[in-house]
Structures are given as C-alpha cells and as structure tokens.
C-alpha cells in the first residue's frame, strides 16, 4: 500500500480512530495486524520474511540476555547477522554477485555457464533488516536492554509508517516508546498532520510532476538536446529528494500523530556547504546507521582494519573484471602505493589515510545498500571520492577564498553550488539503468551546441517543474530561519492558512497517477 493512494486513506481513516480508542495490549495488536496488512497489501507471501526475522532476533535477544559468556554471545550475534544478511543477500544481491562473478571469470579466460534466478525483491527489505540488526547488535553490545515482550518487539520491527522506506529507527530510540500508551495530543495532531501535508506536497506535486520528464531523458538520452538533458538531471535531483523525503515526512508525521517520535531523516540537504554536511542532512538515519555500525567498527578516523583493506581490494578486482579496463590496474597500484607511502609518514598521516579508506568503504557499501547494480556502487564511489577530495583540497580552497576576501554570502553560494552540482552528477549514475546510459546523458549534456532553451521539448512541463521546485526551495530556505512547525503550533491562523494553501496547491499541481515511491525498490 502506498501513502498517495485512496486505499491508504481508507485504511488510515479506519485505523486511527481504532488506535486511539484502544489501550495497552489491544492497541499493540492493532498496530501489528495493521502493519502486516499494510505490508501484505503488496505481497502477503513476503510477510513470512518479516516474521522469520522478527522471531529470530527476538529469540537471539532473549538468549543474549541469558548468557554472559563472550563467545556464546558473539555466536548468537553472528547467527542473527548471517540470517538477516542472508535474506538480504539472496533477495537483493544473488543475481548481481552471480553475474559479476561470471564477468570476472570471463575476463580471466573461463567460460562459466549458470543461470540466474528470477527473484522478486521484497519491498523495504533493506530497511527492516537494518532495523532488526541494529537491535541485536545493540543488545550484544549491552547498550540496550533485552525486549522480552514479543508483541512489542514484533510491532517495533513492522511498524507500518516506516516499514518499507524508513526512516530507519533504532531499537534504542523506538522500543522505549512502546513501554506506555501514547496519549492523544492535539499538538501532535497539528504538527504531525502539517508534516504529512508537506510530505504529500513534495511527493505528488514535486516528485511526481518531475518524474515523466526525467523518465523520458533517461529512457532515450540520445534523442534529446543538451539543455533538455541538463534540465532532466536537475529535475531528477529534486525528484529523488522530494520522493524520498516526502515519504519520510509522511511517515514521521503519521507516527507523531500516533504519539511516536521518529528521528529526522532529511534537513534541507541541498543547502549543504560541504559533503560531510550533506551526509548529515541526507538520509540521516542511514548515514548514522552506517557511521555507527560500519565506519566506526572499521576504525573510523583513527585506525584501519583488515575489512577495509579486503573490501577495497575486492572492489578493485571487480571493477577491473567487470569493465575490462586494464588501465585500472596501474591506476589502482599507483593509488595503493601513494596510500602506503603516506601511511608511513607519521601517526597523523596514518590516521588520515585510514579515515579516507574507511570513508570510501562506507560509501561503496552505502551505494551497494541501495541496489544490486554497478551504477549504485559507482554512485557510492563518487561520494566517497568527494569526501576524500574535500579533505585533501578543502582547506586550500578555503584559504583561496579567504585571500580573495570573498564575502560570506558569496562563499556560501559557491560552496552550495559546488556540492549541489557534484551531487547531481552522481545522481546521473544512480538514476541510469546502466553505465552506458549514464555516459550518454553526460556526453549529451556536454554537447553545448544544443544548450539552448529553444531545443527543449515539453516546455510547459519544465515550466510547471520550475514552479513547484521554486516553491520547495522558497519554503526550505525560509525554514532555515523560520520554524514552520513551531509557528503553526502557536498561531492557529497561520496554521489554517498554510494547511489550506498546501491542500489547494496539491489539488492544482499534484500528479495522482504515479505508482510508488522510488525508495520502495531499495
């Protein structure tokens, strides 16, 4: 079931009154049944995966609570990891790794012959798997207590507002909120419904209005002019942002109405002035998950680990094997030699080298988390490279701007423009079905002969796109200084005006025939 559909409004219209009418266990049962119904609406067979993950992590949690023996605890944690990641690996990555391995074998002269399977990707598997795993890891690390109530635990894993596309809510943040009944609170209804409305505006008025233009660009890039493709790429940057953050806003708003607090998932990311800031503002719950459960265990900004070195080596082999570009061999060797040389220059340099290595591994795996395709890994690689180059070149660039006595507003503008441009460049790979399409889009944009507005087809769609993106940017820019939620709580007139305006804008600008949210596929 998707948020922007009539069945969802019927569903929520029945669910919310029942939710507030019930108390205690009955309310938890309602949440669990509603969550399973919500998920089963897509394909009830895959509910079994959620049930297995839930049961396993619940039992592992109970056992972890009973034993203090380190080896046994580690085994239990590894069992949970193996099963959860096993599901993820099978449903999401089996064909990708099978194909990739075959490509590597072919590149070294073997002729493997096997068939990949026709596997359906269960909606939201990456989200609930990470959520479930975070519980086991935190219990293993004794950072949170064991949850003994199965009903509470199952509801935490499958809670429908954020089940299929996040935000990824950690057990430490969410489970304690189930300890007592969440009370009906008008302030929560006000701010929750406001955030939901804003989410709907982002999804149906911005993301879905831009989608057809973007789809056309990436379906046949060779047939469009440079300006057309350029606008298509810019539109995609806003489409994916509004599609995903729109979903998060609806999920967070709905949960808030129900009495739950979810962490923020997006904070005006396109106003970021550097890439570290971008990742603190974009898909915040995934960034912090990867930071806490991957980047820091890899060594963070202090140490290296065998895992990092192994993964970078593996990535290099796959990159060479899959692309067949032999020039990558000396290129990688040069990078490793440079890294090794720098590593030996002292403690500070060693820490810097490890930081860069760990950042790259985290971003590569972050890319792979999104999907089983090289374009996602390449997207992760680009963001890893941005973070590394920012560390290398950033201070020098800052000094250059200082020496030119650049005013702060201009400096901010330059930084925001650089981050947005490079992020949009990376989105080209993320959106393209394959590497060739991405290159066609980029080479099409580079053909500056056709960089004229006259060459753009569907100018009226562009006009509408510019209008809705303009509204979005205006609101987001003003939100940096003006807290809409807070003001709408204090001033009923303001609330009535803004909510009414949003509803009218949705009716006038919305697109109501789209299928799903982009992040459902992840």
């Amino acid at each position: 079931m998707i948020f922007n559909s009539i069945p969802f409004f019927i569903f929520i219209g029945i669910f919310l009154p029942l939710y507030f009418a019930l108390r205690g266990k009955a309310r938890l049962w309602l949440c669990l049944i509603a969550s399973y119904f919500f998920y089963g609406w897509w394909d009830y067979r895959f509910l079994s995966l959620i049930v297995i993950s839930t049961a396993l992590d619940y039992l592992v949690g109970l056992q972890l609570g009973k034993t203090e023996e380190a080896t046994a605890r580690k085994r239990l944690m590894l069992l949970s990891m193996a099963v959860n990641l096993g599901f993820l690996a099978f449903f999401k990555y089996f064909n990708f790794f099978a194909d990739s391995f075959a490509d590597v074998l072919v590149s070294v002269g073997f002729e493997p012959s096997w068939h990949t399977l026709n596997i359906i990707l269960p909606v939201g598997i990456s989200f609930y798997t990470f959520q479930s795993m975070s519980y086991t890891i935190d219990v293993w690390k004794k950072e949170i207590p064991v949850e003994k109530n199965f009903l509470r635990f199952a509801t935490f894993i499958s809670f429908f507002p954020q089940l299929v596309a996040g935000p990824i809510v950690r057990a430490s943040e969410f489970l304690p909120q189930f300890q007592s009944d969440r009370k009906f609170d008008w302030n929560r209804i006000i701010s929750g419904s406001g955030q939901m409305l804003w989410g709907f505006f982002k999804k149906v008025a911005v993301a879905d209005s831009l989608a057809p233009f973007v789809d056309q660009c990436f379906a046949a890039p060779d047939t469009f002019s440079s300006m057309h493709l350029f606008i298509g790429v810019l539109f995609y940057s806003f489409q994916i942002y509004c599609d995903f953050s729109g979903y998060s806003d609806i999920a967070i708003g709905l949960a808030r109405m129900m009495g739950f607090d979810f962490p923020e998932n997006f904070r005006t990311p396109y106003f970021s002035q550097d890439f570290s800031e971008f990742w603190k503002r974009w898909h915040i719950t995934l960034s912090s998950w990867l930071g806490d459960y991957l980047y820091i265990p890899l060594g963070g900004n202090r140490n290296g680990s065998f895992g990092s070195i192994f993964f970078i080596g593996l990535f290099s082999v796959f990159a060479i094997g899959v692309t067949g570009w032999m020039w990558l061999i000396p290129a990688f060797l040069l990078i490793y030699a440079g890294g090794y040389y720098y590593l030996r220059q002292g403690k500070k340099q060693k820490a810097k080298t490890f930081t860069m290595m760990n950042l790259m591994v985290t971003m590569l795996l972050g890319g792979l988390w999104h999907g089983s395709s090289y374009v996602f890994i390449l997207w992760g690689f680009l963001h890893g490279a941005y973070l590394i180059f920012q560390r290398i070149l950033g201070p020098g660039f800052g000094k250059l701007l200082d020496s030119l006595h650049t005013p702060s507003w201009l400096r901010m503008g330059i930084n925001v423009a650089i981050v947005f441009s490079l992020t949009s460049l990376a989105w080209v790979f993320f959106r393209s079905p394959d590497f060739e399409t991405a290159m066609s889009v980029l080479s099409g944009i580079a053909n500056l002969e056709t960089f004229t507005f006259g060459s753009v087809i569907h100018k009226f769609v562009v006009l509408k796109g510019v209008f809705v993106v303009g509204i979005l940017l205006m609101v987001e820019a003003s939100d940096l200084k003006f807290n809409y939620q807070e003001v709408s709580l204090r001033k009923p007139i303001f609330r009535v005006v803004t909510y009414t305006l949003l509803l009218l804008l949705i009716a006038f600008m919305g697109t109501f025939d789209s299928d799903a949210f982009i992040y459902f596929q992840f």
Partner: protein
Amino acid sequence: MKNSLWIFAVLAITFLGDRAIGYVMQQQAADSQFRYARLYDNRAEADILLVGNSRGLIFYQPYIEEVTQSETFNVSYNGMPIDLANVLVQDYFDLYPAPKKMVVDVTMCDRLNDQLMSDFKMYAPYSEKLSKLLKDKSDTAYNGSQFSHLFRYNSELYQRNLFFQNKTDEDWLLDRVISDGMVEGSADLKDYTIDFQPTQKTKQVKTSFEYVTNQLVDMVTDSPTKGTDVETNPEYVINQLVEMVKYAQAKGTEVELVINPYFPAFANKIVNIQDLKRTVEAKTGLPVNDYSLAVKETAGFGDYQHLNKAGARTFIDKMLADNVLK
C-alpha cells in the same frame, strides 16, 4: 481557536477556496484564444474543420485561410487520440453550422492516450460527450474533477490555455529545421509500424461511490476490480474514425481523408502505411489522399514526422492543387 475547530476551518476554507479559485479559472479559461476555449465558447465557426494529432498542426491555418479565403478551425493537439478527436468533432457539429469540409489526417489512428484525455477534464463541464468519455477512460481524472474544481485546471492544457490567453494559436506549429544529426541518422532508421489497432481498455468504475467501494473490495479480496478490462476491441480506433466521418457526413459536410507527409527516409520505413490506407478506405468508403511522400525537401521538416512552416506551405499547395481544400 478550539482544538478541533481549526480542522473544520481548514476543510471549509479549502472547499470554498477550491470553488472560488476554480470559478475564476473557469472564467479566465473561457476567455482564452486557445482552440478548445473557443470551441466551447461559440467562437469557432469555420468553413474548414481540420483534425489530427501533432501532425495535424501542420495544417497551417494562416496559409490555408490566405489561399482558400475560408475560415478554418483546427481540432488537432499533440498526441490527440482518435476517440477524443471524435468527441471534439461531434461537439463542434452540435454547436456550429456544419462546415463545408472536414480534413482528417488518418495517421492519428495510431494510439490511444488516456493521459491526454484526463487533461481535457477542464472542458468536461461544457460537454456531456466529453464528460462521458472521461468517465469511461480516466476514473481518477473524472472523480477528481468532481471532487475538486481546482483539479480540473491541473494540466498542461490549462497552461497552454493561459499561454494563448490573448494571442491566437492558429499559427501554432513547430517551426524549426530538422537537425543534421537526424538527417544523417535517417540512413539507419529501423522499420516503423503504425499501430492502428491498439486495444481499447474500459474500466468498470462509474461513480465516485463505486470507485471507493471497489477500492474497499480490492483491500479484502484477491480479485482486484481496478483496471479490469470489460471490453477489448482491436477495431475500436478505426470504428471511432468511421463514427466521426459518418457524423460529419450526416450533417452535410464533405470529408477528406489524408495521410500527412513524413520525412522521406522515415516514410519508406513505415511498413504498413498501405495497410492503414486500405483499411480506412474499406471502412469509411472514402478515398485516402496519400501525401506521405509529398514533401521531399529536407528544409521543409522539423523532424521525421513533422513539417515546419515551409514544408507545411508546400503540402498545403499540393492539397489545394488536388482540390482537397476547395
């Protein structure tokens, strides 16, 4: 403000705002110079009625009017499907004295386009036939436009309506010269088929209430009702053309069927153009004037399927010479 009162305030103001803004937009839209605004505002009386999709826009009206000394009205629009054109043409005949001639580019029988149909929701209040077609083809658009009047103006068509508010759309034509890249690429064109028998899909939904009920049924059963085809008719498109032709003939209008020009290299790649011609001739009982290769000059094309102004003049001269426009 009392806790729950603001919700009613939002809903009430939204409803009133929707109706008020919808009314203003309706008034503004009706005053536009855009073709469909004129059609439904009794400002479209003509001697020659021109019908097509984007390829029908090459019936360049200023030149036709200049050489024939006749008033014209062009129903054509980008991606116009024949069933929608049929309704618009019938509405024209219901609202105005029958024109002397109606010229139809039969290559518009190559598609159905429910998306464009939904764009026409802003004109549905003016036409029972259009309203019925919208109801049959796009339940979201139909129910949405009943629910919200502002939603009626949520379309590219409304933007065009605004664009042509104070200026004529009669010279609306893609006026550019085909790019060198396209000309070079024409040597490698693949075979192209005009799909003149796309399958019609009709949804069972009739009212907002039924729609919501069906959604509820979908929620609890394993047999979804949404999008269920109740009729699949491969001859639907041609039948719509025949119906349109008969309607015009019954009103005493002479109908001319034509195949508008294609870029020669592209025309040669269309594998079934003669099939289309034969089928249409057999079903309508009228000859089809084939101009698919009538314009040879590269400079006369905007792309493979559309003439520019220069090409349109050449084409119109040929139709004039063949008495198609007289």
